[in-house]
Every structure is written in structure tokens, then in C-alpha cells.
């Protein structure tokens, strides 16, 4: 059975429709990334699935339960990684993980012992040297690793991460990516949001692009790249003069070019727009306020 099922999910704040019919599923053990520009509704979507926000309309099932009616038993099977700020500053790392893990103990099953043994968990997130530090003494990166540890202390079957690497330096980001891979190896289903395509490509089995209130593309990074338009840009110089031409069929165009000019052609360059180029163009348009046009164009090239 699918871990996540979202059908025609709608959300309206006042008179603004943020989500206009979102559809997707996530299968057990999958890492699914919800990618989209800021303000596209990623956080709203994930908060509805976490049971922290009521939806306006649509059908949602998370681990077989409607999150609007999820009980504590359902809650125990979920992990939510929150962006901490300065909560529990007086607590020590091991102390807090021990405490929060305790809440999961009644939800242990024969197959799955809850909570995660704390020292092992601290090792997994790389906080062993800091286990006895007060939380307010941790660096930003260490705190985020603690956030992840808190999110998975109950050994969740499904883990939510909202913009998990915001504010990370490149090294912390790489370490975090390793951690996500490790969790998905243990059959945890993961839904994470990001506005960074590079991150989505590195982590996700499947990328969902959310823009204009709907999912406008759904597939692996490879699939999305293959579905891209074949539009390419050809640059060359002829007798020292520069030329640029955009074409659907670059191979045929270059063949013609050589037939006509042969040796006179130099500095030939054929460049196909990458997924990133197209995605970035959409984000720029989206952020300059041309939402509908941006989404339509993107859907055309990827559809």
C-alpha cells in the first residue's frame, strides 16, 4: 500500500488559493522530494500531511490514516524534523533524546523496537563528542543534526523534512545527504521539501515539482531531464563573425551548416538547456510574479 496518497488537495487562505489540486503518492521506502520556488506551497503541503494544518478540500491518506483524524498511535509512526531555534537550551543532548524517546516506548512492536537506542542514534547523527553538551552551546550545524535525531528517535516509518539543509555549509550538507541515504536504506519513507534542484537530484528517488498550486512534473531526475524539450542553442563563428541559433534539431542544423560553409566554420558549440536551466527560468518568472505563464511554459517543456 502507498505510504502517502494525496488526491486533489486544495488549500485556500482567505481568497488566495495556495494549493489548487495537488496529486501524488509515495511508496514504502521511497525518498520523494517536493521541489518548488519559495511560496509555492511546499510547507503548507507538508504541514497538512503532518497533521499540523487543516486542509480546505481533497483526500489525504498518511500511513493509511487521514491526518486530520490521526491519533497518538498514528503520530508515533511519523517523524517530523523541525527547525529548532532556541528551545530546550538548558537540556543536554543525550538527556533530551532520552526524554523524547521515552514517549515512543509504548508503541514498540515485535518487528520494530522503539525508541532508537540513544547512544547509537547520537553516533548515527555524528554528535557523540557533544552528547553531554548543553543544547544552547551547540553550533548551528550541530543543532540541525540534533533536530534530525529528534525526528527519528521514534524509528518512524515515514519521515518529514521541511527545507532540512537551509543554512548549511557545503560540508554539513554532504553529511546530511549521507544520513538521508542511510535512513532510506533502512526502509524509512522520506518526504522532504527543498527549493534547491541540486539537492533534489542528489537525494530523491522521485522529484515532484510544485508550482502554481499543482504538481507540474513528477518523475526521477533522469526522467525529468529526458522529458525536457530538445531545444538547443548552436554557436559558431564564420570568418571571424559570431553567430547564435536556437533549433529543435541541432544535428540536422549543424550538418547543413558544414555543407554550406565547411572550413570557414570555427568555435562550434552546441548547448542543450539542462533541467536546471529550465527550472531556474521558471523560478525567476515565478518570483517576478508571472506565476501562470511560468508554470505553463515549464509544463510545456517538461510535459
Amino acid at each position, binding site marked *: 500500500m502507498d505510504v502517502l496518497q494525496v488526491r486533489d488537495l486544495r488549500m485556500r487562505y482567505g481568497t488566495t488559493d495556495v494549493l489548487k489540486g495537488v496529486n501524488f503518492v509515495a511508496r514504502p521506502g521511497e525518498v520523494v522530494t517536493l521541489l518548488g520556488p519559495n511560496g509555492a506551497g511546499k*510547507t503548507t503541503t*507538508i*504541514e497538512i500531511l*503532518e497533521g499540523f494544518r487543516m486542509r480546505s478540500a481533497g483526500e489525504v491518506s498518511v500511513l493509511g490514516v487521514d491526518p486530520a483524524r490521526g491519533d497518538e*498511535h498514528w503520530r*508515533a509512526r511519523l517523524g517530523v524534523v523541525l*527547525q*529548532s531555534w532556541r*528551545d530546550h537550551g538548558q537540556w543536554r543532548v543525550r538527556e533530551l533524546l532520552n526524554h523524547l524517546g521515552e514517549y515512543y516506548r509504548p508503541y514498540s512492536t515485535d518487528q520494530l523496537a522503539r525508541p532508537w537506542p540513544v547512544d547509537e542514534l547520537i553516533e548515527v547523527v555524528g554528535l557523540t563528542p557533544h552528547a553531554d553538551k548543553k543544547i544552547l552551546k551547540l553550533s548551528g550545524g550541530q543543532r540541525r543534526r540534533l533536530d534530525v535525531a529528534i525526528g527519528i528517535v521514534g524509528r518512524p516509518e515515514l519521515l518529514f523534512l521541511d527545507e532540512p539543509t537551509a543554512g548549511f555549509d557545503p560540508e554539513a550538507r554532504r553529511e546530511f545527504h549521507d544520513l538521508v541515504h542511510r535512513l532510506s536504506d533502512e526502509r524509512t519513507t522520506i518526504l522532504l521539501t527543498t527549493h534547491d534542484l541540486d539537492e533534489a537530484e542528489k537525494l530523491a528517488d522521485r522529484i515532484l515539482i510544485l508550482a502554481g498550486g499543482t504538481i507540474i512534473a513528477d518523475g526521477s531526475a533522469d526522467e525529468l531531464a529526458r522529458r525536457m524539450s530538445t531545444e538547443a542553442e548552436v554557436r559558431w563563428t564564420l570568418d571571424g563573425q559570431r553567430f547564435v541559433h536556437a533549433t529543435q534539431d541541432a544535428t540536422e542544423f549543424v550538418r547543413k551548416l558544414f555543407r554550406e560553409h565547411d572550413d570557414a566554420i570555427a568555435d562550434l558549440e552546441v548547448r542543450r538547456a539542462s533541467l536546471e536551466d529550465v527550472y531556474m527560468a521558471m523560478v525567476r518568472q515565478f518570483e517576478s510574479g508571472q506565476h501562470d505563464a511560468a508554470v505553463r511554459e515549464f509544463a510545456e517543456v517538461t510535459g
Partner: protein
Amino acid sequence: MTEGTNSWLHAARVGLRRGGLEIRHTFTSSQDLWNYFFPSAILLVVMFFMRGAAVPGIDFSLGSRTLPGVLGMNIAFGGMVTLMMALALEREDGTLLRAKAVPNGMVGYLIGKIVLIMGMTLTSMAIVLVPSLFMLEGLALTSVTAWLTLAWVMVLGLIATLPLGAICGSLFTNPRNAGVIMLPVMGLVAISGIFYPISSFPEWLQGVAQIFPIYWLGLGMRSAMLPDQLAAVEIGESWRHLETVGVLSAWAVAGLVLAPWVLRRMARRESGSSVAQRRERALQRTT
């Protein structure tokens, strides 16, 4: 059903331990230690200088007469103001959202908070009471009955004021606005006979004071710690235990009926983005 009840009880036990840990944390934080000792020191100094003055009409130290009232007031402050500030602050910093994200976490959080406030109230009470017993004369805390009275007034007082603190803490979204509640509370202290008997006040003002728990907490503590002839300067020339239990219980029942509803409504609205919004706002203020 039984599984639900069991995990609820389990969370309650985890909450008790949480409260214990949080009490321990207050002893290692310089900010919390300051909050314990600074107000207590001021009160002790005030009462030290009041010890020579006499209660009007009776040959009894005004300082000794004031001490129990101050302890009663501290219970009201602990229950109301401390819980209110804690809720407002911990909603802003995301502590509450974390509690909401773990199974039965809100049960554990609230029980932990109640244990913490009881611990803090007892600690600040001891800090004022112990030196006072040496410094002030005439306190009658020598019988078992006196200590029993002190215990029931304290417990009932906390049960009456904690739900009020929970309600107020849930209504303020910005902990810095929570300060506005302090003004009326200070006004109530002034008319509640904590520092001076109110039998000389106009009757309508006495009536207002007697609606609220602070007056009754002061009276209850005086009844526990002062010799019985001091009842003569109280309204009705009696300790009025029956009325004390009545008024405090009425507040407790009203609070316990309303508070869970207000708390649930407040908790339902907590989400990652609401915490992020408050964080943005708070950071903008500090920079």
C-alpha cells in the same frame, strides 16, 4: 482504548520526570537562580524594615503579619505568571511544537510544567520562609495543623491559579505582550491586603478584592502561620476557611473546565511555519 490509556499514563510518568529534570535545570542556570533569589531578597529586606511597625490596633509586628501574605502572593504568581510566561515563550521558541510532534507529548509537557512550577514555588517559598523564621518574631508555625493548613492552601492555590496561567499564556502570541497582564495583577496585589490589612478600605474595594484568588491565598497563609488572635484584624474577624476553600475551588473548577479547551485550540494552531514566523518577528526585534 486500554492501549490509549496506558500510553497516556506512560506519558504522564514521563512528564513527571520531565518536571524533575527542568527543576534541576533551573538550579544550573544563572538567570533562574537570579529569579529565585533577587525578588526574595527584596521581600526579606522590606519585611526586615517592617518588623518594628505594628499591625494597627494590635501589638504585633507588621513584618511578621506581612510574610504569610507575601508567600500566598508568590503562589498566585507562580501559578499564573510563571506558567503564562513559560507557555508564551515556549510557544515562540518551538518547545510546544516539539511536544506536539511526539505521541502524547502535550500531556507530558503540561505535567512537566506543573511539576516545575510546584518545585519553583516551593523553592522560592523556602528561600523567604527559612530566614524569616529567624528574623521575624511571632510566627506560629510550630504545630502539625499549621503545616497542614499551609499545605492545603498551597495546593488548592496552585490548582486555582495554574489553569488561569495556562489560559492567559495561550491567548498571547507574543511573550513580550504578556507583560500587560502584570499591571492588573499588581493592582490586585495592592488591594488584596498582602502588605497591609484591608479592613480599613472602602467596602466596595474589599468586595472586588474578595472575588480574586490573591486575597484568599494571603488570608489562608496568614491563618496557617499567625497566632489565632490575629484573625481579629481580618474581615469578619475570622480566618474564614470555608469561604477560602469555596472561592479557590470555584476558580479551580472554572479554570479546569476552560483551560483544556483553550490549550487544545492553541496547540491545534501550532505548526512549523507559525513558529518560523514568530522566530522571524523576534529576530527582527533584536537586530
